[in-house]
């Protein structure tokens, strides 16, 4: 069995999750504060990948990043970066596609924390940043884990978006889910079985770990 597609999938999922942890948590915090029209619209846009058919999202991303379009052209000219049919393109697309899976649980957990927690910390002279890291984040640990795992697993299972923007370049954009499709398409059921089993095993282990970790939380393990 060729392991490259599995590694590519894991690498893509890990990088996407890491990027979303960095940019997603501050955005989730911002969204969890008092709501405004701007936030409602912004959140609606971020949530679109959840309901949009992946091929639609992939199609628009393909148009956006195509060297014939203004953004794709600009990226190519100034940064020598092509986001179509490249691994970098997959990362960008995955970040967009998995955004709501990171934002939504974290935002909801932050919004459910009593306002008095942060207020108590402020009266004790602690800055907003220190309060965030020492009081708010530690108290949404299980939601943070859920968000991380959902993002990772969701990226691992991506198909439509990846196919649209990355194609199936061997060793570059041919991730496991596409390798399965490709194997079936070529009547190589044995290989499709192998990839599928590996993906099944990885995701199963991840979900079991989340359930074990969150078994004592008051909500369901995936809340």
């Amino acid at each position: 069995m060729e392991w490259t597609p599995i590694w590519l999938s894991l690498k893509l999922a890990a990088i996407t999750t890491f990027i979303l942890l960095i940019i997603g948590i501050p955005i989730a915090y911002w969204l969890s504060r008092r709501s405004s029209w701007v936030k409602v619209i912004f959140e609606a846009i971020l949530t679109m990948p959840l309901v949009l058919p992946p091929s639609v999202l992939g199609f628009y991303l393909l148009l956006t990043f195509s060297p014939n379009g203004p953004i794709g052209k600009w990226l190519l000219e100034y940064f020598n970066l092509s986001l179509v049919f490249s691994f970098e393109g997959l990362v960008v697309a995955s970040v967009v596609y998995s955004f709501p899976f990171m934002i939504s649980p974290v935002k909801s957990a932050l919004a459910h924390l009593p306002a008095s927690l942060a207020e108590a910390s402020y009266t004790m002279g602690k800055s907003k940043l220190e309060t965030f890291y020492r009081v708010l984040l530690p108290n949404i640990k299980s939601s943070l884990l859920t968000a991380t795992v959902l993002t990772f697993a969701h990226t691992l299972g991506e198909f439509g978006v990846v196919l649209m923007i990355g194609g199936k370049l061997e060793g570059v954009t041919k991730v496991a889910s596409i390798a399965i499709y490709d194997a079936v398409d070529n009547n190589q059921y044995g290989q499709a079985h192998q990839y599928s089993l590996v993906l099944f095993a990885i995701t199963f282990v991840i979900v079991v770990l989340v359930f074990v970790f969150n078994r004592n939380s008051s909500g369901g393990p995936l809340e």
Partner: protein
Amino acid sequence: MIEVKVSKKIKTYKGISNLTVEHSFPQFSITKVFGPSGAGKTTFLKIIAGLLKPETGVLTVNGQTWLNTAEKINWSPQERRVGFVFQDYALFPNMTVLQHLKYATADPALIQRLLHLGQMDSFADHRPAHLSGGQQQRLAILRALALKPKLLLLDEAFSALDDELRETLIADLKSILKEFGTTTIIVSHHAKETENFVERSLKIELE
């Protein structure tokens, strides 16, 4: 001396009402604030702590202006550093009793003293979820005291304590507040709860 003259619109079931308070609290005094439910007692405490901003108002604490809306002075809660005991205690679920106190002060001797005062010595490594209601309330009080605040605001802070414990705590509290030079304002519904604690009272009503 703490001088307050504030006015803030608050939402009530009858619509928008006006909370207006004008009062001077002598330094080192313990004042009880009372009034009907929804009259804005908690709002008043939060305005003093800097957690809410009134439409208009002036607040001076021992000669320092913490708030003056006309002159656009408004100290942040961090700068005011009042001791605040919240009605819901606002304990941090991720921290043990000891970690709560360490979060508030770096003085180990003070921490030991407070643990003893609140009869919490043997619960130092317990998290709030493993404390009784009365223990949680005591921890909230101890955490506020750990700041050695010039101003202590208590929102229904004795409601979960039994009579015996409350009386012991009140006696100890009074002496430590005197030592720290703290001026105290306590919101309470029940006269009995603050017996032997408060020296004066202020009624708050909506206009």
